[in-house]
């Protein structure tokens, strides 16, 4: 006798036991959120006050003050250069790291771990923290900013590129090994062409991210537009601060347009 003949008309995706388990997990999550909310000290009066404060700040920011626009644009250009130079160096330095960190290209287990160590170190430290470190080493200025962004980008680009190397079609690699080509030539002919699209996509994406990150580097003295923003806020020059924020917004939108265009052209 089949199930259909028995006239079964009940069906449930989960058994009772599975349902109970799922409710338990939901309850645990809800408890965790409630506990998290309870354990942070929120001064509710300030939260309710926020709309008034916001209105007040906007009133003080309006109209934006363009007297220093020349300086702002010059420093903004410096910001773009920090992002671009850092991205260029990071992408080049990330290539050998990706090679080491990909399981199918790394020479041996030790190099694999070396590659992964570099990636983790680079990625686990925020750009601002790297910047604080390099300001201490190189002194304030754009060099610290460039190196900070570079250090953070190597991990990002290396990680994504390494994963792209691991996901390639292995059959052409086998075919070229069968022709008697050396390891390096196999990489150049069978692996590089396959990861090229990812390489460009990641490089453009990272440049886009670096453009945004380089605008806050100035807050810790590592060059770029952030220095002017910090100065304006510290001196309660809200109208200039508004001008700087507008300039950053324009830059980010422009960066978005440029990277979208590059993506279309190259990939």
């Amino acid at each position, binding site marked *: 006798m089949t199930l259909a003949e028995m006239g079964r008309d009940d069906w449930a995706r989960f058994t009772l036991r599975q349902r109970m388990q799922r409710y338990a997990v939901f309850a645990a999550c809800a408890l965790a959120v409630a506990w998290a909310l309870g354990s942070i000290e929120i001064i509710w009066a300030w939260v309710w006050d926020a709309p008034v404060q916001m209105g007040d700040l906007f009133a003080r920011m309006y109209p934006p003050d363009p007297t220093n626009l020349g300086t702002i644009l010059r420093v903004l250009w410096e910001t773009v250069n920090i992002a671009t130079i850092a991205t260029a160096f990071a992408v080049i330095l990330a290539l050998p790291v990706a090679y080491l960190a990909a399981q199918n290209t790394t020479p041996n287990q030790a190099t694999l771990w070396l590659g992964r160590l570099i990636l983790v170190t680079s990625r686990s430290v925020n750009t601002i923290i790297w910047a604080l470190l390099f300001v201490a080493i190189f002194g304030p200025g754009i060099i610290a900013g460039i190196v900070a962004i570079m250090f953070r980008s190597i991990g990002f680009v290396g990680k994504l590129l390494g994963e792209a190397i691991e996901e390639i079609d292995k059959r052409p690699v086998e075919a070229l090994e069968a022709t*008697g080509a050396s390891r390096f*030539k196999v990489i150049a002919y069978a692996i590089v062409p*396959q990861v090229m699209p990812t390489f460009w996509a990641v490089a453009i994406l990272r440049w886009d991210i670096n453009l945004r990150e380089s605008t806050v580097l100035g807050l810790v003295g590592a060059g770029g537009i952030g220095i002017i923003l910090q100065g304006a806020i510290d001196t309660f020059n809200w109208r200039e601060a508004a001008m700087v924020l507008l300039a950053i917004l324009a830059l980010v939108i422009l960066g978005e347009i440029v990277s979208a265009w590059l993506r279309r052209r190259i990939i």
Partner: protein
Amino acid sequence: MLKITDLVKRYGGGDPVLKDLGLTIEGESVVSIIGSSGAGKSTLLRCINRLVEPTSGSIVLNGTELTRLRGRHLREARRKIGMVFQSFNLVDRLTVMENVQSGRLGYISTWAAIMRRYPKDDIRRAYELMERVGIAHYANKRADELSGGERQRVGVVRALMQKPEILLADEPTASLDPKTSEQIMGLLRDLSRELKLPVLINIHNVHEAREYTDRIVGMRYGRIIFDDAPGALDQEAMDRIYSGSPAADRADGLRQAS
């Protein structure tokens, strides 16, 4: 001459895939290897150019013992062995010419390879071979723009660019439609005659094996149980090679129907 003796290949600790296998190929004959999936055909071919490491035994190609070669010596030996694959194994994003020239990678300098500065002789040879198989007009196209039959022609030319002493073909027609498949088999046979090149072909299509090859080797469970001219492959031999497999059952059905 290719001489394989007592070849054993065992993956992990299980039953060997190849069991004391012996096979000699002399002259420029086209030899096909038939057998059901899992018989060890592909492993046998890959042991010859060491894409698969043999466990024990000996493989000698024109006086060179292949099984113990390492590093540079292995690469130099591989240059003499061309291979054609079931799924063509081209680099899709490179042009047909680059794919064809990648057969010469074992010979040219790294700098020439990266800068795509191929020797004039190689370019001339590439055009001649591409002309011969009918793909010369695709030289500048990307490999992924070609149809299956054309892609396999690129694969064949890439292997021939190596100036191989033997050509291995691992189910070269299994991804192709019947008509294209026969064209590629005919091409392999004709090229073997023209270039005086021994060709070893793994194949599932017994009809094509009979039609296009000079000698048929039948494998079953890692052993050669048939080795003769195509004419000698009778129903009894087919049954031994394919017994208990779906292919044999289909053949039985056909026999009863006719």
